[in-house]
């Protein structure tokens, strides 16, 4: 049985375990119908031209883990940003781990989507926000919606700021030969609220994992949201990440995506601006080797005047790795005075590495500033010689140059310990230890 059929038949079993009177049941049923019609995307679709999910569909994934697993904190501590105090929402093989988590209802809600979808006190918020910005026809998103039950639920009321950043961590333990996970996150920052979130998917074994994640983020007037995606997973882990963001007047949402590991990663990052004077920030660092594949598809839809967006993605590709950057910007006719900036720079370290980069601008307003640029190059030989002539060996000099190349993306990271951590991962990925902390 191929994966699509297996998912369709699993849906019935899934629905038997949930409350059929719940209004979300309607949403799920609608979604599975859409998925049934569409199926998995193929390379014939323009948006999936360079990324194939074929081999994943041949794997016999378990849709529901059969038994629960536990993890000792000391064994997985390194995957957390443990240098600072944070709230934590942790899942093991898709199941919530209260032992590893630290949630709160103190002025803000940092808890589970499963609770929010079933308990009456959350109904009002769920009715207003759940599945409101996520696509209703993109096939992987609808697949996730159909199976949406568990994930993070973060609600920051008007004017509130949580005491500390929030980490969302998904572990897979290899309990199953192959596991498919479909986490669903809902994040709402009401007027003038502020929140910082770090998300990580981490496989702990060589067993195959396929995560199809959907995150909806709502930033109301004057809200400020920072979302950091740390993608440094095992070589047998694949991830399709679908993130949808709805922004209102004067809000600022920044999403940083750090892609250093994993087998196949597809990031669909979609910003919908609906208001004036807001800023959307999309930044990414991708460093790949082996046969890894990362595909960044971004969309920024400017629907109102006087807004800004800033995109800056840097990629370093070694061995036989492949990268994709497709940055779409839509500026509606009424969205005058839009300032949209997009930059994608890439370095290829080997003859066999590939990057496909494409800006896609659809501008219907006439008084806008839209700049975009993409570059693909090799390391600057003159710069390398400069460093070597100061006694720095070629390997370390190469790493320093790559670090310098990607560095400005880190400037907007607002958690210093996270910045440090990312620098360490970069140094590890590049296989060097220079004489100071990168």
């Amino acid at each position, binding site marked *: 049985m191929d994966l699509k059929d297996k998912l369709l038949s699993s849906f019935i079993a899934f629905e038997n375990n949930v409350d059929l009177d719940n209004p979300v049941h309607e949403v799920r049923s609608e979604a599975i119908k859409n998925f049934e019609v569409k199926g998995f995307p193929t390379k014939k679709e323009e948006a999936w031209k360079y990324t194939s999910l074929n081999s994943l569909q041949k794997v016999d994934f378990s849709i529901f883990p059969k038994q629960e697993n536990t993890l000792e904190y000391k064994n997985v501590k390194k995957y957390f940003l443990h240098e600072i105090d944070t709230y934590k929402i942790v899942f093991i093989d898709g199941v919530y781990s209260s032992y590893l988590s630290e949630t709160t209802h103190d002025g803000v809600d940092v808890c589970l989507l499963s609770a929010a979808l079933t308990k009456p006190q959350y109904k009002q918020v769920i009715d207003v926000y759940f599945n409101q910005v996520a696509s209703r026809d993109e096939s992987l998103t609808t697949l996730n919606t159909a199976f949406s039950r568990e994930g993070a639920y973060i609600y920051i009321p008007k004017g509130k700021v949580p005491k500390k950043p929030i980490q969302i961590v998904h572990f897979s333990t290899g309990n199953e030969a192959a596991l498919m996970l479909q986490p669903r996150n809902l994040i709402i920052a009401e007027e003038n609220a502020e929140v910082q979130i770090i998300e990580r998917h981490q496989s702990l074994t060589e067993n195959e994992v396929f995560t199809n994640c959907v995150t909806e983020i709502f930033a109301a007037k004057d809200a400020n949201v920072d979302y950091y995606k740390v993608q440094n997973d095992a070589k047998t882990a694949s991830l399709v990440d679908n993130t949808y963001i709805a922004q209102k007047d004067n809000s600022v949402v920044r999403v940083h995506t750090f892609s250093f590991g994993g087998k196949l990663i597809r990031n669909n990052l979609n910003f919908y601006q609906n208001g004036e004077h807001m800023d959307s920030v999309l930044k990414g660092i991708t460093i790949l080797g082996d046969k890894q594949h990362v595909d960044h598809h971004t969309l920024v839809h400017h629907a109102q005047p006087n807004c800004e967006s800033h995109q800056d993605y840097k990629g370093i590709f070694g061995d036989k790795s492949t990268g994709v950057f497709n940055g779409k910007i839509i500026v509606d006719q009424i969205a005058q005075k839009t300032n949209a900036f997009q930059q994608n720079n890439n370095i290829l370290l080997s003859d066999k590495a590939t990057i496909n980069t494409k800006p896609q601008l659809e501008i219907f307003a006439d008084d806008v500033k839209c700049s975009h640029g993409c570059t693909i190059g090799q390391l*600057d*030989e*003159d*710069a390398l*010689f*400069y*460093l*070597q*002539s*100061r*006694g*720095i*060996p*070629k390997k*370390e*000099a190469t790493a*320093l*140059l790559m*670090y*310098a190349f990607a*560095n*400005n993306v*880190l400037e907007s990271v607002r958690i210093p310990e996270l910045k440090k951590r990312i620098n360490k991962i970069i140094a590890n990925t590049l296989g060097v230890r*220079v*004489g*100071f902390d990168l």
Partner: protein
Amino acid sequence: MLEIKNLHASVEEKDILKGINLEVKPGEVHAIMGPNGSGKSTLASVIAGKEEFEVEKGSISLNGEDLEELAPEERAHKGIFLSFQYPVEIPGVSVTNFMKTAINESRKARGLDDMPANQMLKLIREKSEMLEIDRKFLSRSLNEGFSGGEKKRNEIFQMAMMEPKLAILDETDSGLDIDALRIVANGVNKLRSKDNAIIVITHYQRLLEYIVPDFVHVLHDGKIVKSGTKELALELEDKGYDWIKQETVV
């Protein structure tokens, strides 16, 4: 110290150096002058080991050791320093961290442990004061947004930190105003000793008023066509390079 014999070098099959002979002894300062395109910067790069250049014939040796097979960093570890005409910008890496890395890598190559942090800071303080470099400057990203003068001063600061046996200053005077030139030249002069040597590559005589050479060589079309003492530099300043070119043709 440095011995260059019949050196021929090319880049992308274009011959640039066509038989250079040069001997530099400890304690000496040599100036290499010449018109644009004569091969001055190429000579500097070839000595420092830039891979882009192909050595076709001849040899370069430092204290009797042939350099041909050595990578640029290995040459640096042996005491060769090149002050670049166009220093490269490295965002995100501060001057201080860069110097730490450079010094400790060179120490590692000599089998030494990392320099203790307090000793490193002391050295940095000492050398930056010598070149009148502001403390704030040291925490800035290497060369990023530096003015031409700041870049050159930073090069000489690096030279002071690395304490090379043989320093090659490639057009260190270009882009410097007179005050900066004086500071840089003073710094270089303080680093002169009977044990090290300096090659000053310049287009103009101006720098040589401050860093007084023992010998002056004129490079033209990949060859040293005239050698003399510091008076030769003055003569060149007076007559220009055309005089040399004509003399060569004759």
